[in-house]
């Protein structure tokens, strides 16, 4: 899935959370979206997901606007926020069954079991989500998006509650997802970690894009931008 963003701006009252953002991302890229707090990362993800309307500008997926009325276009966009978007009083299996049905899929018990086994949650399949730890809920979200297979997956700070093996699981999932030609945009403050897996980095600063380039080794331009706009990052 190809993402094209033109002159995208978002204002909250008199405050511009994003201003004049232009972006062209081809399929198969794993994009690291970096920036300090308040840079506009979450706003950008929510705009692309269609959860927030833009003040100005356009967003196109495969040259088509992701219209609110177009359900099949919405099915191609996934938003991964750790420990969110899950019903606490449904079981792990019921959550997966509900969301896969909602996306018009019928994965069958075997596929759901396989997805749960991948994230090491088979033993908790019939337990309520409210009984899971935050890290386990994050693993469940990985299983959910693994089953739904969106063409564009947006991730907002996914590392926060995952343990070491959970992080490895997530990164393996993301790399495999990109290899299939899907686009992934990963917003995180864990700069060194995302730089290891990304194919492109974007830095946002005060609502403006200050850096956007494919990954290189060495990467002097990024280092310069990093020093200027992310001086307290963990790179």
């Amino acid at each position, binding site marked *: 899935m190809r993402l094209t963003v033109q002159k995208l701006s978002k204002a909250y009252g008199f405050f511009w959370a994003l201003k004049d953002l232009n972006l062209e991302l081809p399929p198969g890229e794993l994009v690291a979206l970096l920036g300090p707090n308040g840079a506009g990362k979450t706003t950008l993800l929510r705009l692309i997901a269609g959860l927030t*309307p833009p003040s100005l500008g356009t967003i196109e997926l495969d040259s088509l606007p992701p219209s609110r009325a177009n*359900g099949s276009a*919405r099915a191609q966009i996934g938003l991964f926020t750790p*420990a*969110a*978007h899950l*019903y606490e*009083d449904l079981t792990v299996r019921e959550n997966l069954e509900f969301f896969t049905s*909602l996306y018009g899929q019928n994965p069958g018990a075997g596929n759901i079991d396989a997805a749960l086994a991948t994230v090491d949650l088979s033993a908790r399949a019939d337990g309520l989500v409210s009984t899971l730890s935050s890290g386990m809920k994050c693993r469940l979200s990985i299983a959910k998006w693994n089953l739904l297979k969106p063409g564009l997956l947006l991730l907002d700070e996914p590392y926060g509650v995952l343990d070491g093996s959970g992080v490895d699981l997530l990164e393996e999932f993301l790399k495999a997802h990109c290899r299939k030609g899907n686009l992934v945009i990963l917003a995180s403050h864990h700069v060194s970690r995302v730089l290891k897996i990304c194919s492109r980095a974007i830095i946002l600063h005060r609502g403006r894009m200050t850096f956007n380039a494919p990954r290189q080794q060495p990467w002097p331009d990024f280092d310069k931008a990093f020093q200027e706009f992310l001086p307290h990052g963990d790179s």
Partner: protein
Amino acid sequence: MKLLRETYLVLRKDLVLQVRRRDSLLTMFFFGTLLLFVFHFSFDLVPDRVSELAPGLLWLAFLFTGTLGLAQLFGAERENQCLDALLLSPLDRGALFLAKACLNFTLMLLVELVITPLFWILFNLQTWNLVPQVFFIALLGTVGFCVLGTVMSALTLRARARELLLPLVLFPLMIPVILATIQCLAAVFRAGEIGDALPWLRLLIGFDVIFLTLGVLVFDWVMEV
């Protein structure tokens, strides 16, 4: 078919959550019963005042308990940003509206099944033969209440004081349903049949059909507000 399939999916999920939590249903049931007791101690329903007072009292009990249910209608979606998950999915917004309206209707129906006979018992009414007609009219009024209430509940979803705001915006718009239902109920209590209240019954059915259709059509816009 897609609309009905998605409505069924969301409604089934909501019913499972209601069965597990039981908070909305129990609150509505106890509040409705409490209201009937308050009415019982406040009003002396002698036989010649039944047609004058009973319709209003019964319908008020339904309305107030229903408002409690509406306030909790999107409770499951407010947790864990699940509303975002639904809006992100290819789910038709009309299906979300239908599922939520059906959920509130189901909860109110269960409460009304208990409250209506309790009303007859508490006020020592002898006209048990009127219960089916009263229940039928109350159901039509409940449909109107649920469809408009679901739209208003969604509109106030992101408001800070939504529990306070909801009745304030809902009840003025509900005046046609309230009037029509009470007039129909009064006719039944008075004459044992709809009789001269037939135009009110038509208004009630018209309101139900119009707002049910409008709800499906405009819910996409409502969720964006």
